[in-house]
């Protein structure tokens, strides 16, 4: 299941819904991304007042569905979930939740890592951080490309 929404989500409720009434799930892995209050801006730390997430309606839903489908193709999952927020957010707010349930823990954990790595590099969202120096569009990180590239390596599950 995927959801793109402005409003907050409750991690506990979402995870519970994923496993509710089921007795075939052995493991549930999840990752939640939150807004941090500090950012490395050109080597110095700047306090974030708000962060605004812009996205590309239409393409976002399409990409999230593709990313979720790819995870389900690579690992035997019993349930999966991607929720991504957009709009203005404050430090401490939830940004994204991914979760994977599987009979075996390693499938759930790997698929969960995969979802967030691909989200970071393939989902059309852009973060704009409002610091005391004014608004700054967040630059993409090479480390995110590296983490996503792991899943394309010859040895990676496909």
């Amino acid at each position, binding site marked *: 299941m995927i959801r793109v929404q402005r409003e907050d989500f409750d991690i506990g409720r979402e995870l519970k819904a994923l496993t509710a009434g089921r007795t075939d799930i052995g493991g549930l892995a999840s990752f939640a991304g939150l807004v941090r209050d500090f950012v490395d801006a050109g080597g110095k730390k700047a306090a974030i007042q708000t962060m605004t997430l812009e996205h590309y309606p239409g393409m976002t839903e*399409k990409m999230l569905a593709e990313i979720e489908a790819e995870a389900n193709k690579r690992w035997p999952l019993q349930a999966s979930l991607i929720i*991504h927020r957009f709009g203005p957010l404050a430090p401490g707010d939830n940004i*994204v939740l991914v979760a994977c349930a599987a009979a075996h823990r390693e499938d759930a954990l790997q698929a969960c890592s995969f979802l967030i790595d691909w989200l970071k590099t393939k989902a059309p969202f852009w973060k704009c951080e409002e610091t005391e120096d004014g608004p700054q569009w967040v630059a993409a990180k090479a480390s995110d490309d590296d983490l996503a590239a792991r899943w394309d390596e010859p040895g990676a599950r496909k």
Partner: protein
Amino acid sequence: MKVLYFAWLKTRIGTGEEDLTPPAGVANVEQLLDWLATRSPAHEDALKARKLVRVAVNQEFAGPDTAVSANDEVALFPPVTGG
């Protein structure tokens, strides 16, 4: 053709969406970007760092050689930073 701009491309160009009719010679993404850069100083400035411009055609990631035509939705944006 519907052309969309996101993030700092939208801010610099000053609009998020344009309905355009590119000239006959514009058949792929690279040619479209070249032509868009001629539309105004703001376009030119925003498209200068071409390496930082990503393109989607009909909501699919596209390369410089991807074909574009009149009825397409083409989006220009910086590398994504979600998640």
